[in-house]
């Protein structure tokens, strides 16, 4: 029977995958900038940088 030389890499590599630092920082900054204003039962979003 032929040998299989392919590596079982997917499981290991998948666990090492992470979003970039840039994306995480963007999200944290987005969160800081976003504020929701309540007004007469309506909600407004404001992005304040």
């Amino acid at each position, binding site marked *: 029977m032929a040998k299989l030389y392919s590596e079982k890499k997917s499981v290991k590599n998948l666990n090492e995958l*992470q979003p970039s630092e840039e994306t995480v920082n963007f999200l944290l900054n987005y969160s800081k900038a976003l504020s929701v204003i309540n007004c007469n039962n309506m909600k407004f979003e404001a992005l304040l940088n």
Partner: protein
Amino acid sequence: MQHEFISDATLVSNYIDGNEGALEILITRHKQKIYSFIYSKVYDRDVAEDIFQDTFIKVIRTLKRKAYNEEGKFLPWVMRISHNLVIDYFRKNNRMPKFDNSGDFSIFSVLSDNDLNAEKRIIKEQVENDVRRLVDELPEDQKEVLLMRIYKDMSFKEISERTGVSINTALGRMRYALINLRKIIDKHNIILTN
């Protein structure tokens, strides 16, 4: 690490109360699991990054609007959002396949639509009709040479043999034919371009 002991539920309520640091802990805690999940579906790092970002934008907006109902299921909720965004991504791409034209090879250098559109076809017909009428106006000997040279693609040697005149005469007739055509065109301001 200290934040390992704080439950998701507490962090979520802290974040809703305005503690931005709680979000950082939540993202740090779950980013790898969520990102891997997305990547395992799309197999593209950039797309996974985009979907990850969109997922947390949704999370942040929902939490800030106080529209999230904490039931101790923060991670499954975030996973569900990312799952839905992955489905949206595939749906969008199936409907409108993305065409990557960023490489050295541009498909548009090979593919082109050489067919004339309706307007250009009509203009072409009109121009051809005009030319035909102009040629009909020429004296018979010039017209004969012009037709043989232009439309039948004969050499002046062949034309001279066929018409029984010298090559120089055939050349002269051709020259006068063109001069006469230009004269008529100028005189009547005929525009023969597409």
